């Protein structure tokens, strides 16, 4: 897939453990091309969140080699790497910390030297994209779970560069069907490289052509999304269930 395009993310024999000797990921190789949209699936505790956190540099003690846009993933390159990378936390409470939604969404742009007006515009644009423009002045701590998720996503979209990398951990969790559909549209419209971790296989089906399956510390499948979502036995062996839309097909 995309072999002739230069890879944006290159991972070679990556291993990681939280506690000495107990590897959560062990021997991961992956290469993602520019503009690709990759789904990361796997059961609870398979290491999806860990994987994404390693890529944004939140877990610096990994072994192996990771290059992002040519930069080796290490402390001195963090700021360069993070400028072009957005990360949506699994737990949106951790991500939102300003008082109002608009302030929180504008936080990133302000840090990157946008003027107050530009930051506000970027924030409002992002809020429109996630369908929550009407929440702009609301207090973050008074939002519902799904609204928080959308605000967190808007906070990342506000900063997103056209060709940047975006990592989302369970983006569709706690969204209602309408917002979920809207998010699918937003993700599809993004031109940058996308890595989406999710249990929501329907969501992955709608947003990613390529999927990797994490299980037992390794990537056990890397390939076409449609193909793996047809393989009921393989999915079930790895702690996942066939999405509804697939059960009724054929």
């Amino acid at each position, binding site marked *: 897939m995309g072999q002739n395009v230069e890879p944006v993310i290159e991972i070679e024999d990556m291993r990681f453990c939280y506690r000495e000797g107990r590897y959560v990921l062990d021997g991961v190789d992956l290469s993602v091309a520019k503009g690709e949209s990759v789904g990361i699936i796997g059961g609870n505790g398979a290491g999806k969140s860990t994987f994404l956190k390693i890529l*944004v540099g*939140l877990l610096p003690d990994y072994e192996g080699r990771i290059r992002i846009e040519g930069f080796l993933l290490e402390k001195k390159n963090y*700021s360069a790497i*993070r*400028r072009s990378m*957005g*990360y949506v*936390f699994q*737990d949106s*409470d*951790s*991500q*939102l*910390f*300003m*008082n*109002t939604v608009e*302030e929180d969404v*504008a*936080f*990133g742009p*302000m*840090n*990157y030297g946008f003027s*107050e007006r530009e*930051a506000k515009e970027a924030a409002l644009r992002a809020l429109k994209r996630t369908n929550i423009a009407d929440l702009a002045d609301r*207090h973050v*701590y008074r939002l519902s779970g799904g609204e928080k998720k959308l605000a967190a996503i808007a*906070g990342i979209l506000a*900063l997103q560069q056209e060709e940047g990398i975006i990592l989302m951990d369970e983006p569709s969790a706690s969204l209602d069907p309408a917002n979920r559909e809207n998010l699918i549209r937003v993700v599809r419209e993004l031109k940058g490289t996308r890595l989406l971790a999710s249990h929501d296989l329907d969501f992955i089906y709608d947003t990613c052509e390529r999927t990797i399956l994490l299980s037992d510390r390794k990537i056990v499948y890397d390939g076409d999304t449609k193909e793996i979502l047809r393989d009921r036995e393989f999915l079930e062996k790895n702690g996942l269930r066939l999405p509804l839309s697939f059960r009724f097909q054929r």
Partner: protein
Amino acid sequence: MTGPGRAIREIHSLEDLAERGTFLCRIHPLAKVLVTIWYLILVMSFGKYDIEGLWGMSIYPVILMILGDISAGEAIRRMRPILLMVCLVGLANPLFDRELLGTFGGMKITSGMLSMVTLFFKTVFAVAAAYILMATTTMEQICYALRKLHVPQILVTVLLLIYRYLVMMLKEADRIMQAYRLRAPGERGIRKDAWGPLAGQMLLRSMDRAQAVYESMTLRGFRGEFFLRGRFVPPRRSAFYGIGWAAILAVFRFLPVFRIVGSVFIS
């Protein structure tokens, strides 16, 4: 509602106050922070027994609470724990310092009693000034002002994180206590043998969360700089506010204004 739940609500309502957009909220934070620091220095500079002079300093909280539409009753209710603590600490004074100063309505007044009262009011004024600052200025604005005053980046960031950490810890405590209550119905308070694990849980969880928040800030480009957002009154007015208060407070510090005014009326 659990104790921590109430505390979170208090913090949030303080934040709400700071965003009401009243005149005081729209004064440049730098002016407000400087005036507050100046006020604290002046209040602390009074001698142990100088209760009369100290009284003059009441002008600042009184006027600002009126101007800023900040309820004094609310403020006192919120400051209660701190005041109670100071009272307890201050109680030692009359015990150790028993020099007789005179009698008042048949009651013996000792210098220890006087210094206790002075200490009490110093605390009330200091806490009131801090409260007024918090009720008119958001934490980000205060941090911004501190940076403008060249307070080292690391200190300001730590201040902000402590504040956020406090909120996180209260939220965690609230969550844990709710979860506990739901599974231990009919119990009043928390069983003693559950205190240890609950407290440990709370610390660990809130540390994790504070860490996550800090990560979320750095991932979105935070490098210790703060930015001022929102509309403020013209700079000249803010400067006038600052200089005005600095002068008025200095006058009240060094002249016994109340006594002068009083003697004018009496004569």
